[in-house]
């Protein structure tokens, strides 16, 4: 069973993705701030990380940079899902090491399709 780490600080959005991915047969784990995301990723070793950008402690850019520096996680795809919709936000995601980028509102069907693509 593929493992997905969802990093999201808004309870409703976290719950939505948890239901979505669980129903689609994934093993789901979550973190609600940047620091927790890094430690959770290290212990849980997910196959995919869905990363919000605006997060407490430190943001999703920083969390992604730290995760990508961990050898066992360097190849784990990170899908950024963010409310930041400007052109340079996309660039910042890329620079931080995110593998894909979606702007909120990201519809469940699209997230699922993108997650499947990244997991293959």
């Amino acid at each position, binding site marked *: 069973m593929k493992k997905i780490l969802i990093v999201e600080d*808004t309870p*409703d*959005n976290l719950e*939505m993705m948890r*239901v*979505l991915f669980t*129903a689609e047969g994934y093993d789901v784990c979550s973190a609600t701030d940047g620091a927790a995301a890094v430690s959770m990723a290290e212990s849980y070793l997910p196959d995919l990380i869905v990363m919000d950008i605006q997060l407490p402690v430190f943001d999703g850019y920083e969390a992604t940079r730290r995760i990508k520096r961990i050898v066992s996680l360097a190849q784990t795809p990170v899908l950024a899902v963010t*409310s*930041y*919709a*400007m*052109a*340079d936000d996309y660039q910042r995601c890329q620079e931080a090491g995110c593998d894909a980028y979606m*702007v*909120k*509102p*990201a*519809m*469940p*069907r699209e997230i699922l399709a993108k997650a499947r693509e990244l997991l293959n």
Partner: protein
Amino acid sequence: MIPSPYATAEPGNETETLLFELFPFIIVTDASLTVHRWGRLASVLAPELEPERSLLEVFELHGVRRDDTRIDPATWRSSRPIVLKHRQHTERVLRGQLQFHGDHTLYFLGWPVVTRADDLVSLGIKLKEIPPHNNLSDLLLVLRNSQLTLADADQLTQKARERSRELEALNERLRGEAELVRARQAAEAASDAKSRFLSHVSHELRTPMNAILGYSEMLVDGYYGAIPQTAASVLERMQVNGRHLLDLINKILDMSVIEAGQLTLSIARYDFRATCQKVVAATEGLATQKGLVFVTKIDPELGEVTGDELRVTQVMINLIGNAIKFTSTGSVTVIARRDSGNVLIEISDTGPGIAPQDQARIFKDFQQVRLPGGVTVGAGLGLSIASKIVALHGGTMGVESTIGEGSTFRVTLPISVPESEPTQ
């Protein structure tokens, strides 16, 4: 304080610099005729000029008798011209070079210029006409031939008044410009604040929109179990309205990005015909759903262009979407063809038309199209954004319309768009 028709000159300021430029003979004194500053040619005429020296003393050195001067503070304040006679009966050497031969009478003409409030006055001195770009030998020639009459003096006074008025106008303009700059800075600050606010609001709206749209889609998709048919149609409406709201949020964000000058085009080569076909495919259904005839004339020879394909698509979808939205019967026609160095896109409808007084207005921010009956639709942002995107491409956008017959929006885009630059 005396109300003065003259410009205000102060040491080193622009007005005084200009005064000295126009009248290089000017000597600035105060009301007691103590010398303060002078123009470059005044010191050629009177090398004895020194700060704090009495002007009359300097004039006496040049043969001006005190009783010729008729200068008293009241005269100075009258702003009437002051004429000083300077009789030369014998050959005289000024500064070793300036020579007067024979019997000459020179008139020094002065006119008071109130400088700072009413405590400083200037005495302008001019001897007949001095050629422009004069050098010392020209000056000598003029001085030698100088026969200033009182008629000349009047003429010079007239000129002086004109110059003073020009200076006053210049002052006025400079003051006005300073105010304009301040007003523009304030407007820019307000516009920046508005853009930041819009951008912030649009970011903040995305998070709850994510939950609203996401959960409703998951309900439709059965993640929370089967839902009754009646509820399904309600969910459908929630989704349509949610997407509409999202579209508005995106437009607000676009607008704030454009206004903040952050919108850059991603310029690349693309197949314009393929783009047109995509746009047609995306909008055709909307037209046929409303029972409209959807006519397309896409030139197969359109070929490749450079530009921001995504933004151009956005413009075309906006225009075609509007045409469909406002047309209840008849047709929507999309024409795309080459027109010399441009591609030309025409979107015509048989809708209600746009009144002449509205035709320029609709391309501005937050200006809605008002339908007959006073109904307004939309946020009034789509056309404004579209026209800005077209302008960024170096293209043009316009409308022709007749009330009751329909509208034609015409966009031209250059086939080749240079390097992308941020909007200003």
